[in-house]
């Protein structure tokens, strides 16, 4: 029992220590790109994800004038790169892309929730879901414009 508790402590300490490291864009864990079904899997995920986002009552408004196909393609490239895939992301940096929008923490969280639902719908294992979210989480600093 004591051992288990110790293990838990070590694991959670490591998890906390890992955050600042991840914040400096750590490399993706091995095989994350494969776990997401490579580029075609990511494209399918982003298709479903963007379709959920644009109709969401909380954050759909931010995308009403955005070209969906371009957004899907751009996000696919970005997630492909983040997960360690052989893609090139040519889009904007996150700060420039969001600075003219009034985005609050709640909006960011709503988007994360929709991404989780889309990943769930595609049957991506929970561990892999969390790995991706951990890689994306540091972006909140550039995406959230209203604090």
């Amino acid at each position: 029992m004591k051992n288990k508790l110790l293990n838990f402590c070590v694991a959670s300490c490591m998890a906390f220590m890992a955050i600042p490291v991840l914040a400096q864009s750590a490399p993706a864990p091995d095989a994350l790109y494969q776990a997401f079904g490579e580029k075609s899997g990511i494209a399918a995920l982003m298709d479903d994800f963007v379709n959920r986002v644009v109709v969401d009552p909380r954050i759909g408004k931010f995308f009403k004038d955005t070209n969906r196909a371009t957004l899907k393609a751009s996000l696919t490239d970005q997630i492909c790169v983040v997960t360690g895939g052989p893609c090139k992301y040519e889009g904007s940096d996150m700060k420039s892309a969001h600075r003219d929008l009034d985005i609050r923490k709640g909006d960011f969280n709503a988007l994360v929730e929709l991404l989780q639902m889309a990943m769930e719908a595609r049957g991506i294992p929970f561990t892999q879901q969390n790995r991706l979210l951990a890689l994306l989480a540091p972006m909140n600093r550039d995406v959230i414009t209203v604090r």
Partner: protein
Amino acid sequence: MRVLPLLFAAITTLACGAMAGPLQVLVLDKEGKPVRDAVVVVYPDGQGAQPVPLARNAIIEQEKMRFVPALTVVPAGATVRFTNLDRWDHHVRGAPGGLAAITEPALGGNNFEMRLPGKIEGRPASYTERVFDQPGAILLGCHLHGSMRGHVFVTDSAWTLQTGADGLAEFPQVPGGPARLRVWHAEQILDLPQQILSIGAASLRQTVQLSVVPRTRRM
């Protein structure tokens, strides 16, 4: 002898109508703070003084997901060049700004759309030029990136200035006599009523207050 300059002034006044004079317009927001990027347009009845000429050509760059500058003021007939400095494609979509899209559908000439390819490293940026013949405010947007906003204000008066960070538009000389004053701002959707000024030799300072508080661009 002292009467002579006065007499001379009187004769000049009779000859040219009222004396031209400087005009300073201060634009404030609803809370009383100075507003930058408001357009101040003066329509003088009289003639005489020469306006500070407006640039016939302008460049609007698409850089880091923005139209730079956010507002461009040109006279009717001016050529504007749109240059894409981003690595990805941008649309430039123009449509009459504010309520004009509903109230003045005849301003169809200000509807346009073009696509500019993204910049490739080491090569010159792509651009397109467009002539703006119809006066009015034009809202610029990008179909691909919905957060992008910009404006072109095509003016029909040579007496047109854009306010600076201090909210001021300063005309060194406006022809004397009555003049109409119009103030436009992108976020002042309902146009403010125009004012009638009386321009004379003495410097005139007019304050115009918007009914909105425009948001400022984040850096």
